[in-house]
Each structure stands twice: as structure tokens, then as C-alpha cells.
């Protein structure tokens, strides 16, 4: 399959990757008070650029757009190669949005302010890079480079158990990514033996014809790396710890961006590179996906810590992405991609809500909360919309993705679709539980808390501005999903091209 490229007139992608890095370097020499305005301005510019790209992107046929390529290490066939198709572009846009939101939110940082923003800026550059890199060495560089700032963000600005959580996060993901690296290098070498051409470009590696056993091995190596990042059950145990300990903005990025890297990896690499192996492993992936959905949903119900609950719900939602992806049909993959975006929006909003509650009450324990709705009405509305979007209420973003995923899965395995579909009830249960335990049940409040709640301040301007884009896009996707489906349709077809060729 040959791919068309549309060269970028202006190297937008490179600009967006370099901007935060330059800003980070500049910030090192400036005073603390400049950190926030500069970060917000930079991320706003990036968001505007990415939105512009989203609007100009031509979804009518599959082309790699805004494409740039420069030689890097010619001896190894490595080049700097970036560009977007719809899958890359939507996640790239989501990343830009999430960082804008995270920066606007970050008001109450009281220690090492400058370093905090520098870490986030470096993280932004790396995260943007992951979704647009088409050269595997660069992909890996971005993929790994984000570990450093994220490790510091959790470890320095987190809560009590932060060092344990940061270390666990680092070692888990590092473990997975090294296997990913071996898989990629193995494929690179195999492709060299076959074609005699050294290249780490995605578009050369995709043409490698592998024997079935080798394909299985490479699939597993890559899948290990991706599965830890997603995270899929049983590799998810780092996530609740990381989320609970991370500062609010860190949780937002972790949930909205970092988790997407794993699922992006599956859709981008595993399916087109290893079509036979992907087909072969469908039952395994379905099983893991369903276990993730049901088991972690039940775990979520059992939690009393707000962030831990949302973290488990993330794993559960990622389960829908997994089964959607491995349904290996248009509906499923479209659903998976839209679920990724939707989950990015909703989980970011839910973590913001958790952050809001913590900043007002200094606790994440649901037992110590409750009955806040009347005292913080605007927040209660925003929180409600986010919670409903997360549950999958029709008209909001969560519904579209999960519905399409299930539709896709239903065509392949009725049992999987049924089990996953039933667990939507569990999803509703824990989300509503969360909402009730924090916002309602005013009548159960004791005097002390009632007194405290009366002095609560509702959302501040910057908090409102952080929520606003998330909520708007929840509605946009929920009400007008066909624009998004149209956008990604051709890309999905291209991704499934090789699997279609296998037939059956």
C-alpha cells in the first residue's frame, strides 16, 4: 500500500514541538512570576495551531498531511519524520488542549514554581512528538523522554507517598518500553534483511513480510510496551498510585494524554504491522479488555478515595478502547479513537473536579465530603456534565465512542459485547456514587462540615476557564459525532487495510 504525502507549507508540527522546549529554556533564566503566563501563552498558541490543523485537515482521502522529513543518522536510516493522519491529529489536538487546561488550572503551586512549569513544558513537547512521529527512533525518543518530566512531576509536586508512586510509575513504564524497543529493532533488522534498505521509517517497516511466528513475537514485544502504558489489566497497578499521588494537573495529563499513548500504539503500530498476529490475539485482547472493564469497574465501586476511583474508571474505559480496537472493523476502531478523545476530555474534567474538591476541603476521602452541591452550584453543574459524559449519556461524548466500540465488537463476538455492555451499568454506578457522595446527601452533613461548606468559594475564573473547553467539546462530540467519524473514517480504513486483505 502506497501512502501519499502532503508536505507542510509551514513546519507547524516542528514549531509546536520546539516552542515549549524553547520556552522551557527561557524560563530557566526568568523569575517565578513569568512562568505561568508564558506557559499559558505558549500552550494557547500550540492549541490554536493544532485546532487550525484540525480544521484544514483534508479527510476525503488517506494522506499524511503537514509532512516534514529531514535526515538524521543516514548510516542507520533514521530521519526526523513528522506528519499527521486523522488518528495522529485528533490525539495531537487533544494533547494541546489538555496542556492548555493543565496550565490554566495550575494556580496553587507553591513550591518550585518555575521548575513545575518547565517540567510541564518539556512534557508537552514530548507528548506532542509521540503522536506525530513517523520515524520509530524518534517515536521512541519522545515516548521515553516524557518519563523524565512525569517522574519529577509526580515525585516533586505530589502528595505524601509521591516518591513510591513516581518510582513505580517510572520502572513499570521503562520496563515496558524496553521490550517495545527490542520489538521495533527486531522489525527493523528483519526489514533490512528483506529489502536491503536501512530505514526506521514507519512507511518502510509496514511493508515487511514477516513469517507468522516472528510476527507473533514482535506483536507480543510491542504489546507489552503498549499494554503497560494503556494500562491493561494486569499491568494497571501503577496507575492508581500514580494518579493518587500526582498533583491535579499531573493527573490530568496522565489520564488525558499519557494513557492514550498506549492505545495509540496499538492502533497505529500493532494492527497495520502485524495483521495476522492481531487477528490471532483477538480472543486474548478481548478477554483482557473485558476483565479490565468489569474488574476495574468493580474496584472503582469499592474505592473511597476520589482520585483512586477515577483512576480505576480510566482503566475501565481503556478496556473499551482495547476491545474496540481489536474488533478489527470500522465501527470498532472508530469507536476506539473517539473513546480515546472522549476519555481524554472526561477524565481530565473529573480530575479537575477532584482537584477542586481537594483545594477547598483538603481531603480526597468521600466519607469526609458530601452535600456540597448547594454551596458550589456552578462547579456542581460542571462536575455533573463531566460525570454524565464519562458514564456515556447520549448527547455527550462518552456515549458515541462506547456505542461504536460495542457495535464493532458485537459483530465479532456477541459475548464480549454483552459483557462489556452490561458493565456500563457498573460505570454508571461508580460515577453516580462518586457524585452522590461528594455533592449530595446534604442531610447527612454534621454541623462542622455544614459550617465549613458555607464558606466554600465556587469556581474561580481560571478554574472555570479550565473546565470550559473540556465541557464544550464533550457536547460538540456528543451532539455532532459525524464530523469526527468522517474525519477519521479514511484513516481507520487505511489502518485496517492489511487486515481486510487477510479476509475472513
Amino acid at each position: 500500500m502506497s501512502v501519499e504525502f502532503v508536505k507542510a507549507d509551514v513546519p507547524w508540527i516542528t514549531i509546536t514541538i520546539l516552542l515549549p522546549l524553547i520556552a522551557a529554556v527561557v524560563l530557566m533564566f526568568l523569575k517565578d512570576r513569568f512562568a505561568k503566563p508564558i506557559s499559558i501563552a505558549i500552550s494557547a498558541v500550540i492549541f490554536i495551531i493544532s485546532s487550525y490543523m484540525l480544521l484544514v485537515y483534508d479527510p476525503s482521502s488517506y494522506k499524511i498531511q503537514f509532512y516534514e522529513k529531514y535526515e538524521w543518522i543516514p548510516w542507520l536510516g533514521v530521519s526526523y519524520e513528522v506528519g499527521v493522519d486523522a488518528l495522529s491529529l485528533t490525539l495531537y489536538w487533544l494533547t494541546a488542549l489538555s496542556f492548555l487546561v493543565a496550565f490554566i488550572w495550575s494556580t496553587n503551586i507553591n513550591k518550585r514554581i518555575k521548575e513545575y512549569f518547565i517540567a510541564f513544558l518539556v512534557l508537552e513537547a514530548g507528548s506532542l512528538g509521540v503522536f506525530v512521529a513517523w520515524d520509530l527512533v524518534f517515536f521512541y525518543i519522545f515516548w521515553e523522554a516524557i518519563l523524565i518530566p512525569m517522574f519529577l512531576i509526580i515525585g516533586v509536586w505530589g502528595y505524601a507517598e509521591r516518591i513510591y508512586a513516581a518510582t513505580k510509575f517510572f520502572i513499570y513504564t521503562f520496563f515496558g518500553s524496553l521490550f517495545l524497543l527490542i520489538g521495533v529493532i527486531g522489525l527493523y533488522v528483519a526489514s533490512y534483511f528483506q529489502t536491503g534498505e536501512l530505514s526506521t521509517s514507519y512507511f518502510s517497516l509496514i511493508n515487511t513480510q514477516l513469517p507468522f511466528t516472528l510476527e507473533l513475537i514482535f506483536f507480543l514485544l510491542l504489546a507489552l510496551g503498549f499494554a503497560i502504558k494503556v494500562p491493561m489489566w494486569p499491568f494497571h497497578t501503577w496507575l492508581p498510585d500514580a494518579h493518587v499521588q500526582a498533583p491535579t494537573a499531573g493527573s490530568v495529563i496522565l489520564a488525558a494524554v499519557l494513557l492514550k499513548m498506549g492505545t495509540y500504539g496499538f492502533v497505529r503500530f500493532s494492527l497495520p504491522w502485524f495483521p495476522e498476529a492481531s487477528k490471532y490475539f483477538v480472543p486474548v485482547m478481548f478477554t483482557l479488555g473485558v476483565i479490565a472493564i468489569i474488574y476495574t469497574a468493580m474496584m472503582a465501586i469499592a474505592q473511597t478515595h476520589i482520585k483512586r476511583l477515577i483512576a480505576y474508571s480510566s482503566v475501565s474505559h481503556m478496556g473499551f478502547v482495547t476491545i474496540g480496537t481489536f474488533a478489527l472493523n470500522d465501527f470498532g476502531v472508530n469507536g476506539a479513537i473517539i473513546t480515546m478523545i472522549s476519555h481524554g476530555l472526561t477524565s481530565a474534567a473529573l480530575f479537575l473536579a477532584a482537584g477542586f474538591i481537594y483545594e477547598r476541603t483538603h481531603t480526597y476521602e468521600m466519607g469526609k465530603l458530601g452535600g456540597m452541591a448547594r454551596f458550589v452550584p456552578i462547579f456542581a453543574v460542571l462536575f455533573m456534565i463531566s460525570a454524565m459524559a464519562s458514564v456515556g449519556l447520549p448527547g455527550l461524548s462518552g456515549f458515541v465512542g462506547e456505542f461504536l466500540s460495542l457495535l464493532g465488537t458485537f459483530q465479532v463476538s456477541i459475548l464480549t459485547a454483552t459483557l462489556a455492555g452490561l458493565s456500563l451499568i457498573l460505570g454508571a454506578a461508580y460515577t453516580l456514587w462518586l457524585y452522590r457522595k461528594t455533592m449530595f446527601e446534604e442531610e447527612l452533613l454534621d454541623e462542622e462540615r455544614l459550617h465549613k461548606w458555607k464558606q466554600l468559594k465556587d469556581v474561580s475564573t481560571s478554574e472555570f476557564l479550565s473546565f470550559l473547553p473540556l465541557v464544550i467539546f464533550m457536547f460538540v462530540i456528543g451532539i455532532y459525532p459525524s464530523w469526527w467519524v468522517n474525519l477519521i473514517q479514511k484513516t481507520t480504513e487505511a489502518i485496517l487495510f492489511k487486515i481486510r486483505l487477510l479476509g475472513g
Partner: protein
Amino acid sequence: MSVIEQLVSGLGMPNFVILIPEIVLLITAFTVFILELITKNRKVISAVSILGLLGSGLFILVVVLGILKLILSPITLKEASQNVFYSFILNNFLENFVTLYGLYVVDLFALVFKLFLIVGTIFVLIHLRPYVESKKSYYGEYYYLILFSLVGMFIMVSSPNLISFYIGLELMSIALYVLIGLYRRDYKSKEGAYKYLIIGGTGTAIVSYAIALLYGRTGTFDFKEIAKTLIISDNLDVGLIGGLVLLLIGLALKASAVPFHHWAPDAYEGATTPVTAFLAVPAKIATYAIILRIVVEAFPSVTETWGLAWALFAAASMILGNFVALRQKNVKRMLAYSSIAHTGYITAALAAPTGMGFAALAFYSIVYLFMGAGAFLLLSSLEKNEGWSNSLDDFKGLAKREPASALIMLVFMFSLLGIPPTVGFIGKLGVFLALIGYEVWWLAIVLVITSIVSAGYYIKVVANMYMYEPTVKNRLNISLTEKLSLGILAVIVLILGVYPTQIWTLTTTISSLLMAGVGR
């Protein structure tokens, strides 16, 4: 007529032009030696040593650039011979580069390694004086011993012959034994020096026995001649196998590969920290270089066996080095074990005896210079402060007390761990490529798993620096020069991490030239 006169009249004068770097270094060493007797001005001594190194290094740099220009760009011989500079390079470094009657070779391979050895030594010397002065253990001997040791390394990487290899090895090692012991009133220094003396002495004895056996079997000291003899007769007898095994053990011992590593942690911990950096980085790089030259030039017919032996050493070094480092409370000792682990990563490339493997080895050892030396030299700057004992607790809250140093240390730690965008990642990537390209899957897996283990201790240092409150509040005293030199090292690590192209080109070129045996 004396023997020398007979040689000169029979074979002509040896080419001394290509020996200029060595000559400059020797002159500097003796000048420092004499200066140290007549002046007590420490800055002068330090400056003279560094100037000598710079002079020698600049000469090598110009020559290397000239050679690369001639090799890699389409300049015809005719054009080159008309240009004064190019004809100089052509005549001396591309044609008559074997000198001293076949005992010394100055090819691109040797020049590149010499260049980086000098770079490393300059950084060591910059940090040496502040350190030993703060420890009240200043001796002028440090300077000329380091220079002599460096000359030993030069001879070693330039040796086409077992005899000159042996001379270089001895010159390097003997100077190092003294350097380690040169730390006044410190018991650990004496212990380390003594251990290194005994074990290193045994090592050289083993090497000399290996040379005797190889000579007895092949009748020659020259690497290429040995290779020819081995190709002609394919029966492996006791003499040959014995010689090979002993040579392997001797080299492994000098490279501190497990199970011959026991001297390393004590010697590293006992020596003054800049000397540790010298011992852990330039001395080792020279050893890797000669290992590479010997395997390619002398034993091309047994690279498989040789590769397997090194694979086993490498696996053992990676496993032991990383697991033991995990338990260390003292960062200097931890870095000593990390250096053993890096011997493992670097020599693992020998398990893939291909151009790729050799290039990966050369690349990793060259870039290890920057991160390895950087980490040790940063310790030396910190150690100057009262009450700093290199324990992990000392590192707590370093980011608050000394933000720049903490950031630099962070870069070195992540580079040693192999996280992009630092150069440590590119080094490991090269080794992975070589191993997987040659289908040595098991070693690649060992490398991966031990790398994950190593994350445990490297990020512990980072966590201590950034995530704890400092236990002591007083400010640390690190001079601007030191910060600058460390900053340069850290920036090099980062720049090479995103733009390794030039060094890759260089190492690929030297590895292919070495394999082709150009000119010899």
C-alpha cells in the same frame, strides 16, 4: 655501527611527524616534572599540563578532520596533493602511518580514540586541583603521572603489535597504581591502590604469559602476522588456546569485567575522585579500544569464540554490576558498580562481531566518556564541601541547595540509565541494533532486564535530589569553572542525544576502516 644506526640506514628514518601528539605530551610531562621541582605555583603547573593536552589534542583534531575530509568527500588524489594541508595528511596519516619499524601505528582508529582520551583527561585535570587542595592532599605528581598514564594509553591504542601493547599497558597501569595511592592519610586509598597493584600486576603477568604463548605458537608479535598464521593453520593447539584465554583474562581484568572486577570498587572508592574519573573513563576506553583492535586485527578467524567469551563476561558484568549497585548507600561506590555494568553494556557489542557491533562499541565507549566522567567529576566537586560523604542521604534536597548541579546530575543519571534524549540511549540503541542484527537475542534480553534493574538506583539518586527536603541547609561551594566544565559535559550529553550523527559517522568509519585493514 650501533643497532639503531643499522636500522636507520637499512630502513630509513621512522616517521616522527605522526608522533607529534605523543611527543608533545611527553615534553609536557617532563616539563611539569621539572617545574614541580622549581616552582610551587600550582596554577602554573596545572595550566602547563592543560596547555600541553590542548596542543596535542588540537593537532589530533585537525588531523582527524583532514582525514575525514579526504576519505568522505570526493577529493581526488591529484587535488589533494596540490594542497599543502591535504598532502601533509595524505603523506603522513594515510600512507606512512606505521612508524618505529612496525611497532607503532597512527591510523584513524587510534587518532579518534586519542582525541577523546585527551578530552576526558582535560576535564579530569580541570577538576583535580580544586579537589586535592580542598582535601589538603596536593601533590605535583598527580599531573605528570596522569600525563604519563595517558601516554601509556596512547601507545596502547596505537599498538599493532603485542610488545608495544604490553609497554603501553604497563606504562598506563603503573602510573595508575601510584595515582590511586596518592591520597594522604587515607586508609581506603592505600587499600585500593594495593588491591589494584596486586590484581593488576597479576593481570599484566597473565598478559605477558599470553604473549609468550602466542609468540611461541605463531612466531610473531605483529597482530596482522598472527592473523595470517592462524588462517593458514586451522588446528587449534594448547599453546594457541592457552594464549588466547590468558590474553582474554588479562584484558577482562583491565576492563574490570566480572568475574575479574574485584579491584575496581575499592580502587574507585579509595582514589581521589578526579583520579577515579580518570581510572573509570579514559583508562577503560583505552582498554576497550585495544580489545577492539586485537579482536579485529589479530584474531579475525576466531571472532565467534571471542565474541561468545565477551558475551559471557558482558552478561556477568551487567547482572552483577547492576544488582550490587542497587544495594549501595554510597554514590561513589554505586557509580563504581555502574561502571562495571557499563563495561558489560559496551563489551556486549563484541558478541556481534560485525561492522555494526564494532561501531556500536566504539560509539558507546566514546560517549561513555562524557556521562561517566561527568558523574564522577560532579561527585568530586560536591565532595570538596565539608561533611559531604557521597552517601545517598547527602544527596537529599540537592536540587534546593544547588539547583544547577542537581540538574546536571539528573542529566548524567538519565544518560547512564539510557533514557532519551540523552546520548546514553543512542549508545544502548547501537548495541541493541548490533546484537539483534546478529541474532544474539539472549544477550539483548539480559541487557534489557539489567537496564530495568539499573533504573532502581539511578532514579534513587534523582529522587533523593529532587523529592526530599535537604537535611543540611548550608550552601555548597562549587566554583564557576567547575560548574562550567560540568555544564559543558551535560550539554554535550544532551546534544549528542538529539544529534549523534557526526559521532556515528565517525565510529562507523573507523570500524569499517579497521575491518578493512586499510594500509596494513
